């Protein structure tokens, strides 16, 4: 294999892997390329990356890994922190059960989901998407959960009646009746929450900022171009 092509493929591999990849694993993927050639290419790549790039090739315990250089950590952190937290499947599932069956107790939720749901409920409580709505008049007086106003807001719902019709989600109902004998994959539940996906555009507070004359970069641009 030609050396430049080898490097390009190695770049693709490490890029897509994210995690460290051992030389052995790379060699398996690159069938006929000798390990020595791979190692040499990687070393040259590491040097090439070193010059003020946004990606660095590092040799770590598990092998070779592409990473962002430490100097950019602040920016990276800012970007990733600004990312709206995504609700995991189990969170969405539990949330949907609460939304449709509220008020509902934890045992009832667990019966529906077929798995222990304490941790999920805690996270949902933490995120204020559900609340404790009181206690059920039953043995042990278990607490019952319900959704919050924040839930409606987060999912752009006018009210609980705006939730997609439960009758449209046959399988949830079936699951309720059969009382979760296995681990029902509640596909329909995703539907209800999916609808409320926050719009991708969302906020653009920078727009106004970018146009302000104070922004120092504007003046520098001319010079940079001449370089």
């Amino acid at each position, binding site marked *: 294999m030609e050396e430049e092509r080898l490097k390009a493929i190695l770049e*693709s591999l490490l*890029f*897509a*892997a*994210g*995690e460290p990849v051992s030389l052995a694993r790379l060699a398996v993927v690159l069938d006929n390329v000798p390990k020595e050639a791979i190692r040499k290419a990687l070393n040259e790549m590491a040097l090439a990356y070193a010059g003020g790039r946004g990606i660095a090739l590092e040799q770590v315990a598990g092998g070779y890994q*592409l*990473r*962002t250089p430490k100097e950019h950590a602040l920016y*990276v*952190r800012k970007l*990733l*922190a600004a990312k709206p*937290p995504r609700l*995991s499947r*189990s*969170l969405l599932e539990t949330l949907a059960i609460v939304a449709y069956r509220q008020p509902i107790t934890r045992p009832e939720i667990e019966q529906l989901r077929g*798995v*222990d*749901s*304490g*941790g*999920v*409920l*805690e*996270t949902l*409580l*933490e*995120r*204020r998407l559900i*609340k*404790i709505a009181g206690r059920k008049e039953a043995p042990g007086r278990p*607490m019952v959960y319900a959704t*919050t*106003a*924040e839930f409606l807001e987060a999912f752009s719902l006018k009210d609980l009646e705006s939730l997609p019709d439960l009758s449209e989600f046959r399988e949830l109902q079936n699951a309720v009746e059969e009382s979760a004998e296995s681990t029902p994959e509640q596909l329909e539940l995703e539907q209800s929450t999916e609808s409320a996906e926050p719009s991708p555009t969302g906020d653009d507070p920078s727009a106004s900022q970018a146009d302000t004359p104070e922004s120092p970069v504007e003046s520098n641009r001319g010079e940079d171009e001449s370089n």
Partner: protein
Amino acid sequence: QKDPAQVAPPLDGVTEGEQPEKSGEALRRFRLPIFEGPLDLLLHLIKRNELDPQEVATSIITDQYLQYLQLLDSLNLDLAGEYLVMAATLLLIKSYSLLPHPGVADTEDGEELKRDLVERLLEYQRYREAGAKLGERPMLGRDVFAAPGETVEPSETVEYRASLFDLVEALREVLKRLSGKAPRQIVLRDIPVAERMPVVLEAIDRAERVEFAALFEDLTDHSLVIATFLALLELIRRGQVLALQQGRLGPIVLSRKSPSADQNSLAKGE
């Protein structure tokens, strides 16, 4: 999971000679094209007969279509209703063209049925093509790959937790109520905070979750309230108790952070 309406058919040469010779439990293995519905089947038949979609209502298509349905019927196989509806449509069109119809209106009805069917077929064909083109695009995870993305320590849950300010606000609420109960009886005693901590933990353990206000419900002594409050703050600081607020002005709920049954479920649940 297959579309329930899909049926696999047909008609590419009836292969009677290929019935299995072995008797008994012989299993036969088939390879069959999958159709997405009556429209898909019709397009297949049109193509196979080298016709144009405009000619969908010709008798050769109708015959082959019906032949296929009969075949399924002879095997006692359930047939999606859509196939039967389409069969009825085809037959109706055929009947208009075969039977003598004195009324002009009838002829027009037949023509209109045919036009509608051709239109549906063409439109369906367009989307089927659009779907095929979509499938040819560079697909993420198949042709192109993105970086999995780096992660940073999640900090987003913090903002959901009740702040110290919220706790103080809540305490003020309790004190306000208290002062109504036992007015002007403010005798400050020196109660060690350490003494109140096990009491708070016990109260939380008893009920798994305790509303902040409930912790002070039975306390009429301001010194006790303050000591209890300080004990709670200390427990939160130590990470033994979790304080969560439902909504910006909702009640604060206290729970054990560790070690408790809840902690286990936390590990398992997520």
